[in-house]
């Protein structure tokens, strides 16, 4: 990757891709993410072993997907031997937010940045990595992103492996409590913004209410959990977009 010649071409590459220092900064900034991911992916590893996935399968899932909500929801589909269409729709809707984040990130990249680096950064667009990247001052250098990604994914994959391995030998009561980890993480992501935005607060409350109705109401409860999430998301987000459209100036 690194050009040994000091040609102007090499300098340009260095400018747009960043330096080894950016990589180290990324690694440092991702330490809290790594720790958080360790806890949550540990829970994922346990859940995956519960439905009969092997340690290797669990690790591959985490390494190839790096998406907490998507992976947890997929376990349900896999356990039920659900259809690929349902899995695709579910991932599409649950992870659709990543396309918004990718769009925002694209505005922070050097316009001359090559496609390969763009593809590299794409691998690690998660709620947390996006949060740190978008708050970074100035341009976003791929080397910085790679630092964030390597450190975060290390925690994500390691936790998955530990959870999948330990799931079988851990005391039932501890496993029971770790089931809360993923929801604790979701709450930590969505709840703080409800304090600053009334619209987001109503979105969260409406989505939880509607999801409860779909879970327990006769007839509606027949709908699988995957489609329930898809329907609730589309209805609530579309209603919110009509009732409380975001301000035109969107570079926060």
């Amino acid at each position, binding site marked *: 990757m690194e050009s040994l010649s000091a040609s102007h071409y090499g300098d340009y590459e260095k400018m747009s891709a960043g330096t080894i220092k950016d990589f180290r900064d990324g690694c440092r900034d991702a330490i*809290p993410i790594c720790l*958080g991911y360790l806890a949550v992916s540990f829970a994922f590893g346990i859940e995956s072993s519960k439905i009969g996935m092997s340690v290797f*399968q669990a690790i*591959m899932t985490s390494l*190839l*997907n790096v998406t907490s909500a*998507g992976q*947890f*929801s997929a376990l349900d589909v896999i356990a039920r031997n659900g259809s*690929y269409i349902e*899995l*695709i729709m579910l*991932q*599409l809707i649950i*992870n*659709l937010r*990543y*396309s*918004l984040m*990718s*769009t925002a990130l*694209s505005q922070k990249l050097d316009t001359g940045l090559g496609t390969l680096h*763009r*593809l590299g*950064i794409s*691998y690690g667009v998660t*709620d*947390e990595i996006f949060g740190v990247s978008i708050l970074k001052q100035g341009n976003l250098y791929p080397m910085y992103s790679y630092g964030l990604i390597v450190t975060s994914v290390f925690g994500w994959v390691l936790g998955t492996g530990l959870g999948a391995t330990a799931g079988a030998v851990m005391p039932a*009561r*501890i496993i*029971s*409590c*770790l089931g*809360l*980890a993923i*929801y*604790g*993480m*979701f*709450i*930590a992501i*969505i*709840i703080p*913004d409800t304090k600053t935005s009334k619209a*987001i607060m109503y979105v*969260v409350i409406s*989505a*939880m209410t509607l*999801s*409860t109705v779909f*879970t327990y109401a006769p007839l509606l409860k027949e709908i699988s*959990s995957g489609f*329930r*999430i898809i329907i609730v*998301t589309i209805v*609530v*987000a579309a209603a919110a977009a009509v009732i409380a*459209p*975001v301000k035109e100036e*969107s570079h926060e």
Partner: protein
Amino acid sequence: MNNVFSYIIVMALVTYLIRALPLTLIRKEIKSRFIKSFLHYVPYATLAAMTFPAILHATDYVVSSVMGFIVALILALNKKSLLTVAGAACAVAFVVEIFLH
């Protein structure tokens, strides 16, 4: 029985495309105000729908789940970190379940 690996590959492809297409193709800002607003609210709606009511059965007892949920809400409202919120929710549920036994 579908192969577990084909599920993993299919979801990995979908998820990667979602991330990669905007980063490689979209170089301009999205114009539609509705789509921008819709995308803005999607994460909150999805994660909220995934969290509730599923969180009530996250542990073996509804009581410990509810206590964990409440503690997570309080900590999140005080902008505590991801690790703190997730860890505290698990810890509280663990303590509650000790008393249940």
